[in-house]
């Protein structure tokens, strides 16, 4: 009996710890806005590389943010944009804008598991991971690339529509930033996301290289952040469909 109570208590403590860890991650990376220019390299299983560039801007923080991502090169894709409105209590709203046909298109929830424009990210991977939308537990401690990490398990809560059943998340103990995520769907490991080149930008520890592996397709996408800035003043009107149309 006593052993059961201890075990139960221990689990609760660990769960609380896990949540605290992720809350700390969010707290340390919190900024009221963000902007960067990204380079995206998609490397297929035959090592063929295609490169694109985009500009990214976000306003607001976890659970209440809005972001816009706009491709800038190559010329054939310039102007294609993705607008994301994140919500604390449900899945985000997403719209795609295509200047060539001057059309916005809502990305339906059912389509969030599909690949984002041929990259190894899915639309869902571009959403924020707000602590309140997941349940966490600590699985243990492991090193990633020689850095000590907590290994956590996160499971989406009922209201969060997700393609993943659960994820394993590694959080660096030194700066409370993500080191690696392994996302599992009903068939097993679907994606592996690695965060590297961690730098301090305006007081916020940030990973400047994110690499995604699509396990099934055996391809990977590398996203590199440049000209990264936090806490700028950005007009909220930029994060509307009207702004997308105007910009084109």
């Amino acid at each position, binding site marked *: 009996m006593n052993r059961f109570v201890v075990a139960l208590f221990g689990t609760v403590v660990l769960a609380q710890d896990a949540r605290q860890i992720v809350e700390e991650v969010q707290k340390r990376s919190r900024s009221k806005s963000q902007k960067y220019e990204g380079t995206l390299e998609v490397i*297929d*299983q035959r090592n*063929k590389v*295609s490169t*694109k560039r985009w500009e990214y801007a976000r306003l607001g923080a976890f659970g209440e943010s809005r972001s816009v991502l706009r*491709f800038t090169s*190559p010329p*054939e*894709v310039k*102007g*294609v944009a993705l607008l994301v409105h994140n919500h604390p209590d449900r899945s985000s709203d997403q719209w*795609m804008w*295509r*200047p*060539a*046909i001057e*059309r916005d*298109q*809502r*990305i*339906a*929830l*059912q*389509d969030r598991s*599909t*690949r984002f*424009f*041929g990259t190894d990210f899915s*639309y869902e991977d571009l959403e924020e991971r707000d602590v309140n939308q997941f349940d966490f537990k600590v699985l243990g401690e492991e090193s990633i690339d020689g850095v000590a990490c907590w290994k956590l398990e996160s499971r989406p809560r009922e209201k969060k529509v997700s393609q993943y059943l659960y994820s394993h998340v590694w959080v660096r103990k030194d700066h409370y930033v993500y080191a690696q995520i392994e996302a599992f769907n009903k068939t097993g490991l679907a994606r592996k996301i690695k965060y590297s080149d961690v730098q301090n930008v305006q007081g916020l520890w940030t990973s400047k290289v994110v690499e995604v592996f699509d396990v099934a*397709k055996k*391809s990977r996408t590398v996203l590199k952040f440049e000209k990264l800035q936090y806490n700028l003043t950005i007009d909220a009107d930029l994060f509307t469909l009207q702004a997308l149309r105007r910009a084109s």
Partner: protein
Amino acid sequence: MILLRLISWQYVRKHKLRWLLTLAGIIIGVAVFVGMHTANQSVLAAFQETINRIAGSTQLQVTAGEAGFPEEALEIAQNSPDVRVAVPVIEASVNSGLKGQGNLLLLGVDMTGDRSLRDYDLENQDDDAIEDPLVFLAQPDSLLITRSFATATGLKFGAKFPMETMAGKREFTVRGIMKSGGLASAFGGNLAVMDIYAAQKMLGRGRRFDRIDIAVKEGVRVEEAQPRLQAALGAGYLVESPGARGQQFESTAQIYSLVSSVTSMFALFVGMFLIYNTFEIAVTQRRNEIGILRALGATRKQIRVLFLGESVVAGLAGSVLGIFFGLLMARGIAAYVGAMLSEVYGVAQRADEVTADPWLLAAALIVGTVTSILAAIVPARDASRVDPVKALQKGRQQMIGEGENRTRRIGAVVALALAFGCMSLARIRPLFYLGYLLAVTAAVLLAPTACNIITRALRPLLKWIRPVEGALAADSLIQAPRRTSGTVTALMLSLALVISLGGIARSSYESIQKWLVVALNPDLFVTTSESLTSRSFVFPAEIGEGMRTIPEVETVQMVRTVRVNVRNKPVMLVSVDLESIATKVHLPPREGDEKTMYRDAAQGKGVVVSDNFALLHGYKMGDIVELPVPGGVLPMPVLGIVTDYSDQQGSILIDRSVYIEHWKDTTVNVFRLYLRNRADEPIVRKKIQEMYGGQTRLFVFTNQDLRAYILKLTDQWFSLTYVQIAVAVLVAILGIVNTLTVSISDRKRELGVLQAVGGLRNQIRGTIWIEAVAIGLTGLIMGLVVGAVQLYYTLEISRSDVVGLRLEYSYPFGIAAALVPVILGAALISAIGPAEAAVRGSLVEALEYE
């Protein structure tokens, strides 16, 4: 079996040509039956195949008629708790513009979610076969084509080819190639996939989809999800399985199916008379043989079974050959049917492979054999009744007994009386058809008597033309009614069919031409397609507003035509400014007040329907037509019934304002332009081309062009009728050749005697020629008379049960006149072979008996 081998087979071997000619009736009938139905089924199967291949793992489809529906419906479907995936689709058949490739089925899909339903099976097994999915989406010229289309056209990855779009001529780029098989096999491989939003732009569809393809969530049963989704979307939407769309197509093409069935059945019916004739002659010729068999102890039943056995063998042989030729014909017919359905109904389809349905082939075998058995029943009965003593005597075997003739005449009178009775009760359709059958039966029963009367009447004329040959020929026909009556009956029925078909074609032409003058009276028509039946592309209404600014243009009428389902039948909804129509077009009203019906309909108080719609679907003045609109049902009372030939299934005229309000669709298929001065046609045409030619896909037709086009479509439809006429004439000619061949062998001794007593070869020839012409003439007279009755029934069937068109009775005197030289010429040509055989035969052999 032994008798068949020892007696029948020897007889067949001796009269190979005659049997072949006899079998020709069954062969043609079965070949037409198999050919037309196989072609028809192949086209329908190809359509179903295309639906299935495109559907992928789609379990339900949401549609709202041809006009499509606003995009908002997609969110309703996607938010349904039963739905796992709901993806929008636009499907259109467009001219590829590539030499020899014809139409391309363009499938507009949302590439983000569509792969959950359809396997694009790309050549490189991954997305990279679409070189860059982002570029594919970002560039509206992106196309995914099939390997077979790429091979046929020589298009490679990255290749460009132009297509006419609603935004003018645009170059499209091949950005992906699908492997053959699966989805890539749909529409015979002439398939291209593009982004749905780009397709909307290309086709001028605005923010509308044609349908939504749906897969339900795991654990949800489709039959449970269907009503819930239907309720969520509203009554104007149709939620059904993908297979149900095939049924709609079948319903659209049902008139064609009916016509092909009638043609083949008629060919078999006429073929039955040929077989009957041959067996009757065989019984007559083999009287001695039958007499000997009876004298040797053969029972009546054995004789009857012997002849019926022969008919079974003949039926089977004819049917097998018919099936063989039918399958050979099917491919050509399928191509024709595909093209016709595309032109006449605007439903594109390709049937590249013809597949024979085993059930159809079995049915053909049974129908052919049963026809042969039915035809042989009476001759077999006659054979079994042959008295062995009389049979071994000579003479008078060709006469039909007076008793038999009287029975036939009484039967004919009774059938005729009953047919008249049924005519007065024609509203009860089974009675009407019974009356039709009785009328044909009466004609068939009266045929020998009529044949005899006409031949006797012709005798003085024939004798006057050629005293010896004419008299001999006439006497030969009078004395051998069994030999000729079957052929004359077959000829009569064939020609009656020709007259009725020709009559219906003539009536239709006259009616359509009258309607063209009244309904299609604008000076110019501006359309999106060379084919006026294609509704894949649509104009934005602004173009019409622009054309109104041309000073020479007096009025622009904007027309949007879409097919909608009323009582589960696809009918044509024509939306147009009805007040404007009322001032310019005066469609003859069948019911209702012309002055008020359009005014009230323009105010949204109801609809004006075509006469054929009312007849086919059973609507009367004041009845409520329930029109499915996106989001509900629009009940509209019938305010007037007018004569309108816009569509074979019937048309409903609705005011454009009502259409826009309920369908949320402002697009236009056709602009009807009335000019201030008709002479300005070339100027206005040029101005329209200058204003819009470069920006949009656009075709300007003059009134004359359009009329010629519609008459071409009418011709195309009636080309089936011409096939029927050809079959009828062919069967008729076969009958004459058959009879003459029989006649020569039957009269070998008589002709031998004639030659022996000094008859010249030319006299023999002349006798046979005159006999042939006399048979032709007799059949012709009877056929032209019975044709008049047949035409009445055909028009009635067409009016009440097929297309609902009230066609005026108009006897095709032109066709009747044309038939005279055709049939007499054919008869004369048919006589050449038998006549030469007669004069070149061995005199010794001919007189052997003497």
